[in-house]
């Protein structure tokens, strides 16, 4: 990302700002998207990710900043440039699909091509081809009101891709589908993307989806980007406490940094991270650990582990595993353990983690 010149990227967004009255929806966002990349905008609802996408599509006019598509400036508030959506050659899949109810599947998918005045044989060939790709080949003559949610989703995808747009924008496309179908659609999207080398900007609030699907993710909060990076970076090397607690599950422990930078956790007398918090000397800190880095006091546990004390608040049977809710230091978190590790609700539990697995954030 940092090494690329603007000319190499399909999409280049700079210092984008969008206000609605006094509220700032998007507050100075910038990012670049490379050819054939799946780039996700991840954040809670209301963080400005959909607004950003709509500005890229040309449906909203930015109040400041610029957008370049394949090197051409399509939005530049300072220069008063705003290319309307219909002249941008982008594809957009709406959260609500926006399948036109008065047209058949075929008419819906053919629409962008008829707008572009392709000849009829060409339109027919390409519509049938793309419908086949998304698994709607058998349904082209259906009226679009007779489609299930998943089928509408596929039609929306076909319609957005049939004219080979420079970039495909997806606005929470799977959020109205049930879990199983969502999984299926995600796999299909990946296959289609790999086949056509489509460049995709993907908006989602679902961090699992973002991690599984994306080449890179921009984590957003309150209209600004918190971190941009590959899924492994975002998960394994979060830039701040928000990113770590938003992406993936995390256990948050309170601590105090004493002399020599030793971090004393409130979760137990033995819970000390030696010399880890030099930069926070004398201050309160938050210590975060991923649940997968937690282990039980077994012979295999490393000797220099940090140990915290907790209590089993609840448990639920999961077949091959057991899900516990553990209360530590006033907070609760979920912990999945082997079905053989049995703890009764209410009993005390000792949990360990390696000092290197913990991260320190200012409280």
């Amino acid at each position, binding site marked *: 990302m940092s090494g690329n010149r603007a000319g190499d990227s399909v999409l280049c967004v700079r210092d984008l700002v969008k206000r609605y009255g006094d509220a700032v929806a998007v507050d100075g966002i910038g990012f670049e998207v490379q050819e054939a990349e799946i780039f996700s905008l991840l954040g809670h609802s209301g963080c400005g990710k959909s607004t950003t996408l709509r500005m890229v*599509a040309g449906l909203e006019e930015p109040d400041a900043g610029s957008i370049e598509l394949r090197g051409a400036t399509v939005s530049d508030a300072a220069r008063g440039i705003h290319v*309307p959506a219909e*002249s941008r050659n982008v594809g957009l899949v*709406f959260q609500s699909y926006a399948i036109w109810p*008065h047209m058949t599947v075929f008419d819906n998918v053919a*629409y962008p091509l008829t707008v572009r005045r392709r000849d009829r044989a060409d339109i027919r060939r390409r519509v049938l081809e793309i419908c086949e790709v998304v698994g709607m080949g058998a349904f082209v003559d259906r009226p679009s009101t007779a489609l299930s949610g998943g089928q509408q989703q596929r039609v929306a995808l076909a319609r957005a891709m049939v004219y080979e747009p420079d970039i495909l924008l997806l606005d929470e496309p799977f959020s109205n589908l049930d879990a199983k179908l969502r999984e299926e659609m995600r796999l299909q999207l990946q296959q289609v993307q790999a086949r056509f080398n489509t460049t995709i900007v993907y908006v989602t609030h679902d961090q699992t989806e973002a991690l599984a699907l994306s080449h890179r993710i921009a984590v957003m909060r309150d209209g600004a980007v918190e971190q941009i990076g590959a899924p492994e970076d975002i998960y394994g090397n979060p830039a701040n406490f928000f990113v770590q607690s938003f992406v993936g599950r995390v256990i948050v422990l309170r601590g105090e940094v004493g002399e020599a930078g030793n971090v004393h956790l409130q979760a137990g007398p033995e819970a000390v991270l030696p010399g880890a918090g030099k930069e926070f000397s004398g201050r309160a800190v938050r210590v975060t650990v991923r649940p997968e880095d937690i282990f039980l006091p077994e012979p295999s546990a490393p000797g220099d582990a940090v140990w915290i004390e907790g209590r089993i608040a609840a448990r639920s049977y999961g077949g091959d595993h057991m899900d516990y809710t553990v209360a530590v230091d006033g907070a609760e978190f979920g912990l999945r353990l082997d079905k053989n590790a049995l703890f009764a609700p209410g009993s005390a539990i000792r949990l360990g983690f390696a000092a290197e697995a913990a991260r320190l954030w200012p409280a």
Partner: protein
Amino acid sequence: MRLALGGFLLLAVAAVSLSPVMVVIVGSFEDSGAWRSLLLESGQARSALGYSVLFAARAPFAALIGFLLAWLLIRVRIPGREFIEFMLWIAFFLPLIPVTLGWMLLLDSPTGLLNRWLAALPFIDGPVFDVSSVAGILWVHMTASSVPVMVILLGPAIRQMDASFEEAGRVCGSGTFEVFRRITLPLLLPAIVTGAILGFIRGLEAFEVEQLLGVKEKIYVYSTHVYALINWEPPRFSEAMAMSTLVLGGLLVIALFYQRYTFERGHATVTGSGMSLREIPLGRGRWVLAGLFFAMVFVTVIVPIAFLLLGTSMTLFGFFHIPEPFTTEHWSTVLDDPSFVPSIVNTLILGLGAAALGVFAYAVIAYAVVRTRIGFRPLTNFLAWLPWCVPGILLGVGMLSLVLFTPFLTPLYGSIFVLVIAIAVAQLPLGVNMMKTSVVQIAPELEHASRVCGAGWWRTFLRIDIPLMKPMLISIFVLVTIAGIRDVSTVLLLAQPSSLPLSVLMLEYANNGDVEPAAVVGVFTSILVIVVAIAARRFGLQIGNPR
């Protein structure tokens, strides 16, 4: 740009909706004597206002009866209910004058057919019924329009009610009747009240029935009184305008209250989840109900029409035993009238012209108000609504004054175009409102998707919005066409010999006491309206077609 476009639209709407009203208000103050005479002297004016309110007060009763009938029609599988509902639509669409004429032939005192039959009975002395009375006017209004309108108006509210409200009541142990009384009725009460207020407002501006039945008995209402003032020699414009201003003020207050009420309560009941309401099993009872409904439809719709038809072809109405009871004289009177054929043409131009102009204008205004960001939208919206509380006769007076007293408009005097505009303006609130509900239902994403696919604003409007609004466009076209054929009070003062439509021709016959020729013209207008209604039904308009 947005301000300029918005300003242009605002001016265009104001020119047709606000200026006639302003002319009336300003005109009422031009002669200071007008207000004094209205407020202090004119007993007839006060009596007219009193009768207007008295007649309009039928609305709550009509709403309640209409609700009960609609509920039964929807919730009980009454045999032949499609036909019953269709007949109610016919009653709703039929012009009022022919129906009134039918009742006159039947119930006039003492020559009405029913009166003479009853007089032939040994123990009855003198005429029993008198249609030219307060009771007669109320009877004609209730049967011909008020109740059918309420059935049609309240039907959708009943259908849209979420079935689970009633089901929850049943699960809690209530029977059908208790559920109706404690759940359905209170839930739909806002709709009933809304209907009652609406009926009250429409009742205040009623004209035809009162003109035919009330005037000769000196029972004047607001609009017939204004009509009399304008027909005075010389016309008493100022007094007519003063009285109109007074009524307009009252209507405005009621209408604003109505808007507030519907805004606050309107959203509460309509929570359609697509679940269909359970029908009430009523064994043999439904045949009894069907009998009652058929009797009602027979008496209120079929009988007056039948007697209207009979009246057009009898030498002396009701006298079957005279040497030549039947005659074609009345038909030849009308067919030989040189203004008859031009009147048909005028009526068609009026109905179709107002509909074409209206549908286009309503769509533009509704779309601009709902979907665009042009300037002055709230004001434009208000002005488009304003004619809703302007009685037809007032709009007529205003338009007439505009045309007569604005130099560059005088050439339009006597032109059918003025009548077309008047009807389009009179239907402006309904049309824009219906269009707005249609535009709102088009999710913005459907337009956005088209834009992203490469289509510009205009193509998107033509290929996405217009097709999606098509059912509504057709509905509005039909409603405005029928309004143009039916309307009397709006066009009455504007119509000149060259621009005379059937409805006014019919009224002129009736005013001259030529009931039978008026009935002949009434047959033609009724046929026109029914043809349009049936055509509309074939186009898929929801008329007389439950579910």
